[in-house]
Each structure stands twice: as C-alpha cells, then as structure tokens.
C-alpha cells in the first residue's frame, strides 16, 4: 500500500462511506415491503430471492432447505438422495424447440443433475383449465414421455386438477424428481474459492429470447429455438473428469443471477470477461433491439460450473466433446475482492457491476 492509499483506508472519502453503507444495506436480511405478490416476485431476481427467504425459508426452516440449492440433499435409510420440484407456467405452451412438457421433464432432471445426482423418478402434477383441448394435452404428455425416455427417468406418479375457465392459463405442470447421489462430491457454494474458473456450458439466452418472440407481442422473427435439454450426461462427464466446486443451471434470471447468488453465498468476487461469454449473434441482436442483457436471459439447457482453476482447460475440453457442450467456454474467474460482487470486464474495455435483477427485465423505451 502506498502512503496515499493508507490515508484513504484510514479516512474513507464520503463516496466510499456511502458505498460501505450500501454494502451493509445489501447484506441485511431481506424484508418484504409489498402487501401483495407482484410479477417481480416471480422473475427470479432480487424480489424472488426476498420472497423465498422472507416467506418460505422463514416458515419451513431446516438445513436441507436453507442451502437454497437447485435440489435438497437428504438421507434415506443411509442412502443419499437428491429431491427437487419445479412448476412450469410457460406461455405459449408450444414454442420453437419444445413445449411445456419437455421443459417440465428436462428442468427437473437438470435440477437433480447439477446437484450431482443420477436422476431416477419424476412425478407430474397437472392443473388444467376447463375447455383445454385433449389433443394439446396428448401432445404435451407425448413430449414428456419422450423427454423422460431420453433422460432415462420414469414418471411414476401424478395428479390432475381442473380449474374453472379463466382461472388458469390452459395448462400448468409441476414435476418433482428424486435422484441418487452415488459419487463423492464437494459440490457447494462454500467450496468456491479465489483462483477458481467460471465456465458456461454453451451459448446463453436462447430459451428466453425464443419465448419472447414466440409470444408474438413483438413484430420480430428469428430463426431461433429453445435450448431446452436434459444435461445430466454432460454434468456427469464433467464431474468424472475434474474437481467441480459449484454447479447450477442458469434458468430464470440467467447466468448473471447464478453468478450473483454464488458470489454472495461464497463471499467472493466473480470477474467475467464479456468477450468470452458465448452468445449467438441472433440472440445478441434480439437483446440489442429489446434493450435486454443476455446475461439475464433464461436458458433451459445450460449450466454454470465453478472448477479448480488449474483444471479449466480440461473441463472445457470434456464439455466440448458432448453435443450439448460444444459451445462451452471459460467466462471468468473467482477473486477474493470485492466480496459478494460480480464484475464484468466489457468488450469495450471498461468495468461494471452485474447486479441481481430487480424486477422483470423491462425493455427500455428509448
């Protein structure tokens, strides 16, 4: 430290005091201020995090839940199982590259996979709106069956409810899944440490942009399909090859949300190189038009892995051998400081913070 820097540390400037105050405010326990649920509570960003922690974790508190991973690790008669659940309310129900059915199977399989488990059994709950065409339901169940067969899981139990016309959006699906953890793992945010490499398994944002375009609200057409896929084989290949410290699938809220969750929970910084992040030009173009940042756009077949830095190249090599991992890349690294923040080194040559999303990614107006 130079003399000037020491002086700065002893007497922080007003700006620095303000920044410290903000960091303290950020670290405070989340509190819900709204009296009603808003759409922001479902967008996957800060509001969702607050709702989950202030309402659900507060009510259900237990060690398996509190890690807030994609699935919970539970002991069953001495065997280690992973248990997870997820609801699907996508609109439209059918979109280029998939439908709510394969999404519901792949999503839950992926939640199990990124916990290191071998997916085994799924349940499927359907909430159907009065008047929903049986033909559409058959189409959805057919793609669920096909996705389950591809993922090597069985759908062994289920439930059906029908609600009045107007009380639902056609069809909602909830799937739960169990898998067995049959390998020794040190997966978990707490194993993340400075020097680790951050890897993304393929081009990001394709599912989110596909859905936005498929809704037909924008007069945009693009030759783009959802990336929905079961990634359990890809994950297994990675876990077999290198010491992995953290795995999470980058769904709602995108890669940026995952990175923020990791940086906050691990108490480290994550520094991302914008130019290294794989994004297809067509996704980039749509994001430019809509004023969105691809880092926040949902994927349904991509994961973020944090691996020991010395194994970064091996990890990418292993991933690229699998068709679902062809676009894998090291996008950044874990640093000690500034703890809890995700920084982006922009292609332009600047640096900025990548924070949690506040609400829905609202398009800018001018």
């Amino acid at each position, binding site marked *: 430290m130079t003399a000037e820097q020491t002086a700065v540390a002893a007497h922080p400037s007003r700006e620095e005091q*303000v920044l410290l105050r903000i960091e303290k405010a950020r670290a405070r326990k989340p509190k819900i201020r709204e009296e009603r649920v808003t759409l922001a509570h479902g967008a996957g960003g800060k509001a969702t995090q607050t709702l989950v922690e202030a309402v659900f974790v507060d009510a259900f508190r237990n060690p398996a839940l509190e890690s807030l991973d994609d699935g919970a690790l539970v002991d069953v008669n001495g065997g280690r199982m992973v248990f997870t659940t997820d609801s699907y309310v996508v609109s439209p129900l059918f979109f280029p590259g998939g439908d709510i059915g394969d999404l519901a199977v792949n999503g839950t399989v992926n939640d199990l996979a990124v916990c290191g488990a071998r997916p085994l059994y799924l349940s499927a709950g359907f909430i159907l709106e009065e008047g929903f065409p049986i033909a559409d339901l058959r189409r959805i169940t057919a793609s669920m069956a096909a996705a389950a067969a591809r993922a090597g899981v069985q759908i062994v139990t289920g439930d059906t409810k029908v609600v009045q016309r107007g009380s639902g959006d056609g069809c909602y699906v909830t799937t739960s899944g169990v898998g067995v953890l049959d390998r020794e793992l040190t997966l978990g945010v707490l194993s993340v440490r400075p020097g680790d490499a951050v890897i993304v398994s393929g081009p990001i944002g394709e599912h989110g942009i596909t859905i936005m375009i498929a809704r037909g609200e924008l007069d945009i057409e693009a030759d783009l399909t959802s990336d929905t896929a079961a990634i359990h084989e890809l994950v297994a290949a990675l876990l077999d090859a290198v010491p992995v410290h953290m795995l999470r699938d980058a769904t709602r809220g995108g890669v940026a949300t995952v990175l923020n969750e990791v940086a906050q929970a691990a108490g480290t910084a994550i520094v991302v190189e914008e130019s290294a992040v794989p994004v297809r030009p067509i996704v*980039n173009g749509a994001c430019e038009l809509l004023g969105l940042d691809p880092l926040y756009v949902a994927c349904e077949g991509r994961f973020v892995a944090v691996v020991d830095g010395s194994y970064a190249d091996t990890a990418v090599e292993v991933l690229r051998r699998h068709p679902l991992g062809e676009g894998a890349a090291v996008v950044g690294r874990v640093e000690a400081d500034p703890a809890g923040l995700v920084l982006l080194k922009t292609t332009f040559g600047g640096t900025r913070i990548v924070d949690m999303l506040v609400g829905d990614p609202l398009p800018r107006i001018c």
Partner: protein
Amino acid sequence: MRFVDEYRDAEKAKRLASQIRELCEPGRKYTFMEVCGGHTHTIYKHGLEDYLPEAVTLVHGPGCPVCVIPMGRVDDAMAIARRPEVIMTSFGDMMRVPGGKGSFLDAKAAGADIRMVYSPLDALKIARTNPDRMVVFMGIGFETTAPSTAMTVLRAAAEGLTNFSVFCNHVTIIPAIKAILDSPDQRLDGFIGPGHVSTVIGCRPYEFIAGTYGKPLVCAGFEPLDILQSIHMLLRQLADGRAEVENQYTRVVPWDGNRRALEVISQVMELRPYFEWRGLGFISRSALRMREAYAAYDAEARFDVPGVRVADPLACQCGEVLKGVLKPWECKVFGTACTPETPIGTCMVSSEGACAAYYNFGRFTRRRLEETSLT
C-alpha cells in the same frame, strides 16, 4: 454483430482516450452533462468512465422520460387505470415508477388491468380486439416518442376507433436544458446532446446554448465510441476557445431534424402553458397536450382525473441530481432508503435514471478498481 461491434472497438477507444487526455489542460477540470438517459445507460453499461481522465466528470441530465414524471401525474394515471372499463397500456419502464400511492405494478397486483406494450400501435391493437373496453395509452417521453404517439392517434381517428385514448405526458427537451442553464448552481462546461431527440428536432434548436450561454454542445450517438468522440469534440472546442453546436451523430441526425415527425406532433398536440417536472419544478411551455380537435382521444378530457399535485418526498434529492448539482451518491437517501427495489425518487427507477445506473453499474469506483488487481 455488424453496425454495432464497430462502435465498441477497444483499440479505437484507447486511442481516443489518449487524445482526450492530451486535450485536457493541466490543472483544469471539465464537467459535461449528457442530457439523455440513453447516454447514461451506455456510459455505465460499457464502463466508459474507465477511459476518462480524472479531470473529466460526466453529469447525468434530465433526459430519462420516466425520471421527470411528477408523482401527481402517476396518481392520475392510476386513477384512470383502476376504472373497471379501462385497459391501461404503458411502456415497461413506467411500470415501477412510484406515485403518491404506489406504482402501476402495485395497481396491477391489486386488480387493475395494466398491460406492458412496446409501441403505442400495440395499444391500438388491444383496442381493436377489446371493443367493449376503453384502452388508454400512457404517453411518455420526449420528442423521440411523441411522434409515434401522435401517429397512433391519427391512425385511431382514421379507423374510427372510439375506445382508444392517450394520457399525454410528453415533454420537450429544450425548456429543460434551459432550466438547468438558468439554475444558479450549475457549473457545466458543455453538453453531450441527446441523439434520439435530435433525430426529430435536429441540431438548430440548441444554437442558443452556444450563442447565449457560451457552452458547446455535441449531438452524440449511443454507442460508447460515439460518446468518447463527442467528449473529444467538446474538449477540442474548449481548447480552441469555441462554443458551437456540432453533430457527431451525422449517420442518423439531420441538422434540420425530421419535418414530417414534427408536423405530426403539432397536428395532434400543442404546448401546455406549463408542466411540472419531477425535481425541476414547474417549467413553462415544456410539455405537450392533445389539441382540442383530438379531444375524443384525450384521456384527460374523457376521464375525471384527480389532478392533485403531490410534493416530492422531502428526503429525495432527484432535482439536484437531475441538475447535476449532486452526484447520485451524494443524495441523503441514495443506496439505503432509496434503492432500485424500493425507489423513493424516479432517478432510481429506470435503468436510464442517473441513480439506478450508478447503483447498478457504477458503484465500483475507479479508485477501488485500482486497489484490486483487476486493472
């Protein structure tokens, strides 16, 4: 991506940055205001300030449309939106802007039918498919968005649609800049001019800024190299002792603007005698309302709005931030009581607002960067 990557070239940025450093007189400080929120967004999104020498400070101006909307107008809009027959349509940015009694998002959660649209024409589409409902479009923005609102009204009239109207909050940029120049505490050396507004109004209306106030203005594009080049052009003028209006954004901005767009605005809308701006107070002839001839499409004429003025919260210093007197972090409530999740002032709402941009992207100061090993 073609036509984008060219304007984000790090090598060119480095060259421009060193030319900018050379143009700075030793010991002299330069403060420039980027008027438009789009520029603020670009500056933070790309980390552009990393290229600027200590001597150059950028101040974020009032050109973020949702940031200048007073709370009373938001309450008026919500009073319309809560009527059972109404479908309120709005740009996404507007959804979280707090009025005196919550935001559109809160009103929506409480049962109001409020829908996000990308264009006023989408609102017209909703009106066509819901003939038994009254569709209202929340018109906000500067001369950039006013022509599309006006066009939509003309189209609605041509189609004979009777269930569509506009709640007009469009504002004009020149009176706002003039208010800032007349404010006794401003210490600006020049302006980065709003590129998108200028595609409509052209560069001529800014000439008084150079002529009467002796400050240079450069109309700038929205890519990071555009902004760096504009800063270079401003410094060049100051070094030469000139104060002129220059156009950096020639690929889009014609000197005389877009006559057709201006005609459409003035066909449908006229200047209000005065309008309240959040933080800046009442500014005369600074906003647009619907002309009498289009009263059928004027939500203010069709619905009873409370029209109650709501004072800005006492703790909120958005006005000082908009005028460039305070940096976002100098506001008393910045980052603690006022955050993007719980905005008190509108500068914290839109990603283009000076405070939200600083909170989301810029909080990490240059000095803190240098202390870590990142640079």
